[in-house]
């Protein structure tokens, strides 16, 4: 029994640590926008209802990775090898559910709101998600061809394989799924609402680009040390490596905007994305914020605010008054690409002068 208790304590510690990784959402552009909306509503004496759908979307998406089986945190082979009796194993299975974050969140809701119905509603949403996650995980394990990321095709060109790799990385952060849901909703509004206002398409496109913008600050955050070694070994210039990253980003954004079928929407989203990538260059190369799979991307607060404010300001100005801002943001992006490439090359290829200095030292 002592061993079981110790194991459960360890499990709880692992789950607690994992829960902390979800706090990355606090520095996510989409979260910051929702928080800003809620704050401005409260300051103006209104209920923050407008931001509720955004918070709901963020929460529901986070429930998917949160819903994994706590016992799965122990490597299966290790669990099998530990000398536990069948009774102890059954006990472990049952008690392990107490380490589930879902249960603790439901309890937290119950205590804070004192509303049993709210906790029950949360469980009614969370439990099917948990079941769905378990089923999907089992299905993709036994039938790998069911993994959607596997079907992202290789793009043509010398770095087409790298772009595919980058697309898969983008699709393994929750920001992508939030943007996807927004894009589907926007397309449904565009095509099925008879009162759809075409003037709303461009702001909607900007919103989708904004939801997707935080990963621009951590474009190398998902690369393993092993992957970074391979990057260093490839005979590629810095600009080729960075362009493969940016191309993946632009492809995803434009693919999500395309169903709106509106040239102004494409222009607005492209403007916002160019601003987001340009501003994200420094943190992604120099600050390198950590990034985990199946979490919301986390940025640097100052750069996140800059992405939000500048992206939105320039985006709206581009839509309303100055269409030439799109080529201007494209030029800024090219300059950031050149500067980033220079930094990359310096990191991975010391110039002859630096080599000489190093030699003389």
């Amino acid at each position, binding site marked *: 029994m002592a061993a079981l208790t110790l194991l459960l304590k360890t499990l709880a510690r692992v789950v607690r640590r994992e829960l902390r990784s979800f706090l990355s959402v606090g520095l996510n552009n989409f979260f910051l926008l929702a928080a800003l909306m809620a704050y401005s509503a409260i300051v103006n004496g209104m209920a923050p209802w407008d931001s509720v759908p955004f918070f709901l979307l963020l929460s529901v998406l986070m429930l998917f990775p949160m819903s994994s089986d706590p016992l799965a945190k122990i490597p299966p082979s290790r669990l099998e090898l530990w000398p536990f009796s069948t009774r102890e194993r059954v006990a472990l299975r049952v008690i392990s559910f107490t380490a589930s974050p879902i249960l603790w969140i439901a309890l937290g809701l119950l205590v804070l709101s004192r509303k049993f119905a709210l906790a029950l509603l949360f469980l009614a949403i969370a439990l099917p998600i948990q079941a769905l996650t378990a089923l999907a995980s089992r299905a993709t394990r036994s039938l790998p061809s069911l993994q959607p990321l596997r079907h992202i095709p290789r793009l043509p060109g010398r770095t087409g394989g790298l772009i595919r790799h980058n697309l898969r990385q983008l699709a393994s952060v929750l920001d992508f799924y939030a943007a996807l849901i927004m894009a589907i909703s926007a397309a449904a509004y565009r095509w099925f609402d008879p009162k759809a206002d075409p003037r709303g398409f461009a702001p909607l496109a900007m919103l989708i680009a904004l939801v997707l913008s935080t990963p621009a600050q951590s474009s190398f955050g998902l690369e393993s040390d*092993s992957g970074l070694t391979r990057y260093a070994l490839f005979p590629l210039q810095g600009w080729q490596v960075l362009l493969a990253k940016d191309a993946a980003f632009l492809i995803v954004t434009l693919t999500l905007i395309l169903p709106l079928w509106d040239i102004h929407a494409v222009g607005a989203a492209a403007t916002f994305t160019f601003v987001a990538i340009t501003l994200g260059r420094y943190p992604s190369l120099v600050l390198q914020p950590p990034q985990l799979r199946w979490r919301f991307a986390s940025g640097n607060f100052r750069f996140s605010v800059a992405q939000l404010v500048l992206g939105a300001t320039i985006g709206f100005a581009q839509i309303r008054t100055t269409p030439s801002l799109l080529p201007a943001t494209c030029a800024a992006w090219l300059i950031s690409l050149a500067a980033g490439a220079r930094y990359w090359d310096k990191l991975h290829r010391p110039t002859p002068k630096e080599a000489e200095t190093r030699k003389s030292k």
Partner: protein
Amino acid sequence: MIHCANITKRFADLTAVNNVTLEIPEGVCALVGPNGAGKSTLLKILTTLLPPNSGEVRIANIDIQKDPLAVRRIIGVMPEDLGLFDSLSIAEHLELSGPIYGLSMAETRTRSQQLLRVLGLTRSQKTFLSGCSHGMRKKTSLALALLHNPRVVFLDEPFEGIDPTTADTIRDLLASIANRGVTVFFTSHILRIVRSLATRTVMIRSGSVVWDSAATPDARPLEEVYSAFFEPSPTEEVDWLRSPSS
């Protein structure tokens, strides 16, 4: 083919590679030494991954510090951490790498299939890295090192963690490319393979070359030479392991 003169690499107070000078022509050269001797650090320097504090390295007469990109085009590397991407399958790694080295997609596919067959990876070619065993990952990294038919191949412990049959296949493959004029430089702890494959053996200890078969030929078996240079492992008894299980 590989020329390095007075290479030194320091990490704070630790000198990982100490004034190493080597002249390696075509053929197979093995770098042998205990853990922490500086083998992987030297390999990283030779493959442009780590700049030395001092010294000069030339691969096929190209200075690696002046033109690392040109060096990367002509070398194939299996680094210590294998250099693989988690989000790609075995076959996709090869499809990614070929065009980067200037191969057409058709040529990449033909070569990939041949390499996958030789290395026994055909059946698992669609497996993502997360589902691969250590041996499969190692073979994938080896395939990446060979795909573009490089002039110099650097391999960090290619035979460790590989099944004996595949180890023999890899050994034969490396011997055959060396016969065509490719330089193969590898590190290993398996002296049996080093003896049967390498035309030259270099032993390294605390970052310094202590024995080079080209400079001081020794008729003794490699194991004996190795024992002569490196301290035997500690012989302390672990008492509780000798008592009955508890």
